[in-house]
């Protein structure tokens, strides 16, 4: 984005970030199970229901309550050893994981935050099944920090330490299936204040926070970090965009969201001017479309108990089809709300005739529904209850379009658009987790950790680049792949070994091996030191490490690998003698081509050595010999 699409300042754009990052402690936050996911077949299954606990002032609508009851049925996949009674909600939680607390204190210090004197674990009610207990355990560890960015300081409001939720696997007989492996993995939750005002700024802040996170023991890879973005403009509303994966996409998401809000505001103004309204009546129009040629409608009607229902949107004509995000119309938003009730989509007048529905049928419907030219209708063809519930949602959303932008939670899509997810959560329903004692965090503990903070990735990159004379790319790759420490440890044991060779094997060769399915967990620091010391001690040529690394992955020792593959370097005497032989055989060529003979001779020599001589050595000897001949 070289030039801004909008004048964000004038629009009053405000953005905040919320980042959830899994911490890489050895065990989980409230039990001592392994802090890792598993693809093993589940060994146990547990069936559970959840029931919202009642708030003191909460009135219970019995019908809604019972309905929710029926839907709150879950199956949890568990393991005999990978998960335990705590995840299964069959045992009170174990004490707070102190390693996770320490990692969080490091994060707090790196973000210039104030660590609380006493950490209180809270229960935040979540009854979608993702927590077996029906609540997420969470607490505030630090407040009031900031990070510096090129756009100025950004306030970090809070750092939370909480448990990750169970992994949603799918559905089974109408019950939602979760796996307990992820439940209880420690998460750091970083919340910035909503004081960012430019799309590039959120990207910069997200990047900066990512750098901070990556300097500590956090998990890496898909799904280990989740970023949410809060966006609002002055005349619009607060929208929470969940699950932004790609930082580069952030500015586009912001741009599209601003555009969406501006369009919705404009639509609401037009609708108000027109005196538009949404009628609440839901009308069965099945009989007028019974003989339609439309395949889509015919297919829907083939289902049991299905029907076609319609609603009337007075003076909406032309606006439902209006684009509000690239490729998405107001009608798309209506449809997304309807889909939450299980229908596959809707038809609206701005897109008809289409989908096999012909003009004549549209006209008939307009007549039956007593619509004027500037009125619109929406059709849903589905099983009766679903269709009815979907239209209730659509009516609700259509009414909101008269007012402007509804506050809601949306999901980020890969193309930079967003999709309706659910209404914004209401005020957090929190109460104290009485099973876990409060945690006094001593000043001394914070001080000690703060005086020994890790290097930020960008600082580390610059330092190792300079210190070991690495290329920028190598240094960057080492840091990004979290291998810089490994590199430095190896280098410490083999100070005379070529840094570039170590780094490039770590960054490139091992990566290739992993891609090819080698078990690179065998390549421990000690194993690597042993391999590189072969080069360092001149036992093998540098180019042969790959063969040995592969063997080590297959449990063959470096020494055996050298022997099996006959990799031992030729002694210098043999090299010189062999080269002398070659020179003798090619004397004529040397006299003719002089130094131009270098290339061909090099080729001949290397072919003869079959990789068991160091190229640099061979080249030097040949050069000397040629010079000898020329100069004599």
């Amino acid at each position, binding site marked *: 984005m070289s030039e801004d699409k909008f004048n964000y300042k004038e629009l009053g754009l405000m953005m905040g970030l919320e980042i959830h990052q899994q911490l890489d402690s050895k065990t989980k936050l409230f039990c001592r199970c392994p802090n890792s996911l598993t693809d093993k077949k589940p060994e146990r299954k*547990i069936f559970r229901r*959840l029931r*919202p606990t009642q*708030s*003191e*002032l909460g009135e219970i609508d019995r019908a809604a309550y019972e309905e929710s009851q029926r839907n709150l049925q879950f199956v949890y996949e568990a393991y005999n050893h990978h998960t335990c009674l705590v995840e299964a909600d069959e045992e009170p939680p174990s004490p707070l994981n102190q390693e996770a607390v320490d990692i969080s204190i490091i994060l707090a210090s790196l973000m210039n935050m104030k660590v609380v004197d006493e950490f209180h674990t809270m229960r935040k009610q979540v009854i979608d099944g993702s927590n*077996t207990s029906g609540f997420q355990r969470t607490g505030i560890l630090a*407040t009031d920090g900031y990070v510096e960015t090129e756009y100025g300081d950004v306030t970090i409001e809070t750092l939370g330490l909480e448990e990750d939720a169970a992994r949603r696997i799918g559905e089974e007989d109408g019950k939602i299936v979760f796996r307990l492996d992820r439940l209880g993995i420690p998460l750091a939750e970083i919340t910035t204040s909503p004081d960012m005002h430019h799309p590039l700024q959120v990207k910069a802040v997200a990047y900066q926070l990512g750098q901070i996170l990556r300097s500590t023991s956090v998990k890496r890879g898909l799904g280990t970090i989740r970023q949410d973005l809060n966006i609002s403009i002055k005349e619009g509303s607060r929208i929470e965009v969940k699950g932004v994966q790609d930082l580069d996409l952030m500015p586009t998401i912001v741009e599209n969201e601003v555009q969406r809000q501006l369009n919705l505001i404009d639509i609401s103004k037009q609708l108000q001017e027109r005196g538009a309204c949404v009628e609440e009546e839901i009308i069965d129009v099945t009989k007028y479309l019974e003989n339609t040629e439309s395949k889509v409608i015919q297919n829907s009607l083939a289902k049991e108990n299905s029907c076609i229902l319609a609603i009337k949107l007075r003076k909406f004509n032309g606006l439902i089809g209006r684009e509000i995000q690239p490729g998405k119309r107001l009608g798309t938003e209506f449809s997304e709300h309807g889909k939450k009730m299980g229908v596959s989509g809707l038809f609206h007048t701005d897109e008809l005739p289409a989908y096999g529905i012909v003009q004549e049928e549209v006209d008939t419907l307009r007549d039956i529904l007593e619509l004027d030219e500037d009125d619109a209708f929406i059709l849903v063809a589905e099983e009766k209850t679903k269709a009815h519930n979907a239209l209730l949602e659509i009516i609700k959303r259509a009414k909101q379009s008269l007012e402007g932008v509804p506050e809601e939670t949306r999901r980020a899509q890969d193309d930079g658009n967003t999709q309706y997810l659910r209404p914004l959560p209401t005020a957090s329903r929190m*109460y*104290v987790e009485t099973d876990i004692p409060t945690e006094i965090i001593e000043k001394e503990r914070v001080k000690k950790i703060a005086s020994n903070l890790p290097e930020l990735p960008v600082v580390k990159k610059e330092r190792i680049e300079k210190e070991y004379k690495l290329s920028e790319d190598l240094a960057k790759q080492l840091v990004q792949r979290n291998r810089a420490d490994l590199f430095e440890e190896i280098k410490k044991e083999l100070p005379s070994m070529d840094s570039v060779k170590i780094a490039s094997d770590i960054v490139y060769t091992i990566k290739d091996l992993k891609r090819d399915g080698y078990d690179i967990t065998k390549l421990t620091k000690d194993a690597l030191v042993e391999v590189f010391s072969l080069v360092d001690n001149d036992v093998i040529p540098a180019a042969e490490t790959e063969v040995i690394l592969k063997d080590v992955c297959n449990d063959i020792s470096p020494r055996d690998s050298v022997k099996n593959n006959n990799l031992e370097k030729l002694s210098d005497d043999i090299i010189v003698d062999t080269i002398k032989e070659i020179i003798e055989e090619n004397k004529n060529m040397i006299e003719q081509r002089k130094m131009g003979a270098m290339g061909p001779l090099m080729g001949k020599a290397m072919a003869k050595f079959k990789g068991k001589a160091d190229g640099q050595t061979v080249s030097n000897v040949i050069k000397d010999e040629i010079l000898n001949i020329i100069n004599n």
Partner: protein
Amino acid sequence: MAYEEYLKDFLEISNITVGDTVKVTKPHIEHEGMLLEKPDYSNENTIILKLDSGYNIGIDIKDAKIEKISEGKKPQIELDPVDKKISDKKKNLSILSTGGTVASVIDYKTGAVHPAFTADDLLRATPELVDYANINAKAIFNILSENMTPEYWKKTATTIYDEINNGADGIIIAHGTDTMHYTASALSFMIDSPVPIVLTGAQRSSDRPSSDAFTNLMASVNAAKSDIAEVTICMHGTEDDSYCDLHRGTRARKMHTSRRDTFTSINMNPLARIENNKVTINDTQVKYTKRNEKELSLNTNLADKVALIKMYPGISPEIIDIYVDKNYDGIVIEGTGLGHCSDDVITSITRATSEDIPVVMTSQCLFGRTNMNVYSSGRRLLQNNVIGVGDMLPETAYTKLLWAAGQTDNVSEIYEIMKTNLKGEMDTTLSQNYFIKN
């Protein structure tokens, strides 16, 4: 817990009480929030604030200044009375609470959890109950079940008696799980009942959405409406929220510290399974007392002091002596294996029986029955007037001996009562089917 001493002064100087919104200022940091009660495990110099976000944090008041932003308002809660849908077509059930919480209401403003004690509270938290019965709920006392005593059993039994006399068609007793099986067996001996008496509770507190309380309570309502007119325990049958087991009160035992399916029937299988509001008898050959089979009667005479002693290698005879010295009314021994004691304590036990203290032998194996004829150590106990009570659980033998010794002082008569099956607590035959390894 209230704020004390230094903290109390700190708050009083600024005229601040719990519930007020305050601002706490410390060097470099400021917090605003509502002052909460202090949890008893919190640090002594710390005050607790609830922030706007709902989170609580503790603040050390060293170097801190506090100022009141606004006075806390006591929430005025006026809830409409619940429509109990009283109908002649439904059975009348009494739910008696002894402690713990069957249902809870959470005040999200302060994060406080209030147990639902009154009938209306209970029905507001579990409105489905009124569809199944006319519910009359009462809190008879509020104690943790580890603090239960024979006096509380008597009070409970008397209340049950009154409720049945007043027309209850079934009784549900909400009870802490730790000693639920003691209470269940004690009530079994104290009451003859024409209607079901069902004890239930929760392993996960009722303030959490995953609590087992509701499933257990709903199943108990069904059990209390059934024709099984015994004292029973109704709790989760598995780790799933799918069905509950109905255990005979004299045969049940808490076998796991935390799992939902902690209760297990010992030396029999659960009487019934309750699933989807249906009560299904597990084994039709196992007899049970049916509704209206017995006349209502109450007998709360209990002895004052009975001891329950476990035998273990290295046990010292003085453990027995002390009860004899203190004039106990009876001793239940949880012997090893078939009902044995080490030679070291035989003399002390003989002294007890010779001083007319009934001594009753059970087994710490729990499963199976005592048989003291097999080994000489057992025979020696029999010769010294100790009786084995077969397949009776040690806890049940304890409550039964309290009751038996409350009926008479004559040891032979007490033994006669102990050896007679009164409430399904013992049987002459044991099925191969009754063990954990089926």
